[in-house]
């Protein structure tokens, strides 16, 4: 990354002695979709509001294309925000909502009309121009909110839980539309969300936040496969976390009593993560076979895959099996004994 597009430097913010952000540093590249992910109260919304200019940070600076915008009021920042509840103006119709921001710029009427029509076409809002906001559906409102921002041709678009107000089917469809739109326009997106699936599917990179701090920044694969700690591992997807023992240069997964043989780096790791889809289970045919035997405690058939809760020596963990691959597995029931296997390369070691 040469000159970062947006740079957040040591930004801190307190509200009545409650720390909302604690020395946050972040670099966001041009034209990427970046997600801020965290549970509620982690400071992600505060960070977004600081970037938008609604809140002033107590400390730190925000640089946009190298220019310090920390002290600029929101109405001069070359960026726009889409609110979670859309914040569309209820007294204006669709067209007037969309051209609201353009009328604040010194632009000719023809230019305004041209740009409004362009955006109406892009977001397939034709035919709704004269409708009031409460006369259109939630999905349409979302597109109007998006149009109202994009018509300003911002350098940066902030999206606060962009899909939270939509129902599930619409959400999946809109996810793809958002990504396509971003690809087409090349505008940098910063998305705030608490929904890890949403963050995974939308983002080029994401930051995991907790208690006003950024825990890890990376692309979805890095975050999922190589989480920095237990919190992140559990926050993204389902995590099986085992304790690791290091005895006489032997690396042992304690709960499974399993020795990891093919490991080069014999650092003192304490924990390891094996994602459920990387553990496969097989109904035990003959008892003698292997050490790795578990008992099935729960079975949840979910169509494309099945979730198994397995118990070994009193420790429980998950295995997710694709149903297309192993049709025999459909016969696995509660209390069945199963053989557990996983590839050693899919074990991820980390320090707590």
């Amino acid at each position, binding site marked *: 990354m040469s000159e970062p597009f947006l740079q957040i430097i040591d930004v801190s913010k307190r509200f009545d002695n409650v720390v909302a952000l604690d020395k946050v540093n972040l670099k966001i590249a041009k034209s990427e979709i970046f997600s801020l992910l965290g549970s509620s109260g982690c400071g992600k919304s505060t960070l977004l509001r600081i970037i*938008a*200019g*609604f809140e002033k940070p107590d400390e730190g600076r925000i640089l946009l294309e190298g220019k310090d915008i920390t002290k600029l*009021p*929101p*109405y*001069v*920042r070359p960026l*726009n*925000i889409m*609110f979670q*509840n859309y*914040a*569309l*103006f*209820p*007294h204006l119709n669709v067209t007037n909502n969309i051209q*609201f*921001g353009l009328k*604040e*710029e010194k632009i000719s009427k023809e230019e305004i009309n041209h740009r409004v029509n362009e955006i109406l076409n892009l977001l397939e809002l034709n035919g709704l121009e004269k409708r*009031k906001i*409460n006369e259109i559906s939630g999905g349409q409102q979302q597109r109007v909110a998006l149009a*109202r*921002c994009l018509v*300003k041709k911002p350098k940066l678009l902030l999206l606060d839980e962009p899909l939270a107000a939509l129902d599930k089917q619409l959400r999946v469809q809109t996810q793809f539309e958002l990504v396509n739109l971003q690809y087409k326009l090349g505008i940098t997106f910063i998305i705030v969300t608490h929904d890890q699936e949403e963050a995974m599917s939308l983002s080029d990179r994401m930051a995991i936040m907790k208690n006003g701090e950024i825990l890890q920044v990376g692309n979805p694969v890095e975050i999922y496969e190589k989480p920095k700690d237990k919190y992140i591992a559990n926050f993204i997807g389902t995590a099986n976390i085992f304790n690791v023992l290091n005895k006489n240069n032997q690396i042992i997964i304690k709960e499974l009593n399993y020795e990891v043989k093919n490991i080069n780096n014999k650092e003192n790791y304490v924990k390891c993560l094996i994602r459920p889809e990387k553990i496969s289970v097989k109904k035990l045919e003959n008892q003698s076979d292997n050490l790795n035997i578990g008992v099935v405690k729960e079975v949840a058939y979910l169509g494309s895959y099945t979730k198994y809760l397995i118990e070994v020596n009193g420790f429980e963990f998950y295995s997710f099996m694709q149903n297309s691959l192993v049709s025999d597995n459909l016969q696995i029931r509660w209390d069945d004994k199963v053989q557990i296997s996983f590839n050693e390369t899919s074990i991820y070691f980390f320090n707590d």
Partner: protein
Amino acid sequence: MIKNLKKQNVWFVFTPYLWLVLFFFVPLALIFKISISVSEWGMPPYRDLFSFSENGLKINSTLGNYLFIFSDPFYIRSYLNSLSLAFTSTVLCLLIGYPIAFYVAKSKPSIRNILLIMLIIPFWSSFLLRVYAWKVLLQGSGIINSILIHIGLISEPISMLHNHYAVILGVVYTYLPFMILPLYGYLVKFDLNLIDASNDLGAKPLNTFVKVILPLSLPGIVAGSMLVFIPVVGEYIIPEMLGGSDKLYFGKIIWDEFFVNRDWPIASALAMSGIVILVFPIIIFQLMYAKYNFKNE
């Protein structure tokens, strides 16, 4: 809708109407009756509308009272004075009340209730006492004059009482809560994100106020203005206590006709005219406004 109501519910719905008929329309009809009667000495000081003589039923009605008041600029001027007082104080109440209502609506819920109580507390004392208090404050030997003399700004008391400025002061003070409360009712529901959104889209604070906050609080402004304007047109007590002879107001004129001149028909005709002149524009305005709102919903 009424068709679907059960019998007991009909009474429930009609009780307010019954109240309105008994205590508003009947007295209004009586006033109207007096206003078209002929005044005479006696008790009551007007001739019965119907009288029986050997020639049969005789109707003693006249439009003379109305003709009289509309031909005398004295009455018209007093009515215009009242309208101008009502207009001025409504505008002042709006200018003072809007920021207060906005501030209260946007403060934290815990503080908000305290502020609202502070607004309402004056209502716990009598209206008359509150106006009288202004008389005490403003008079020559009152607190304001004393302080001004004490700090040497003036050498002798200035006369602040018994002019129409004192009346405006008293009216604004008294009616301010009637402006603030409906405004507050609308502003408290206002989504603060709309202000942020407007700012974000490039609107400076003033534009945000004019283009977003003001249009969305318009119903509150209309309600508050009605609550101030209408009663102030007929206001009697405040001009009587704080006003002087520089301007005569409509309420005072009606009072004088009733109790000083004992000309009930003229007083009634004044009251009726005042209502009609005021009510029709307001009804038309309300209908237009309702239509506008309907279109916007």
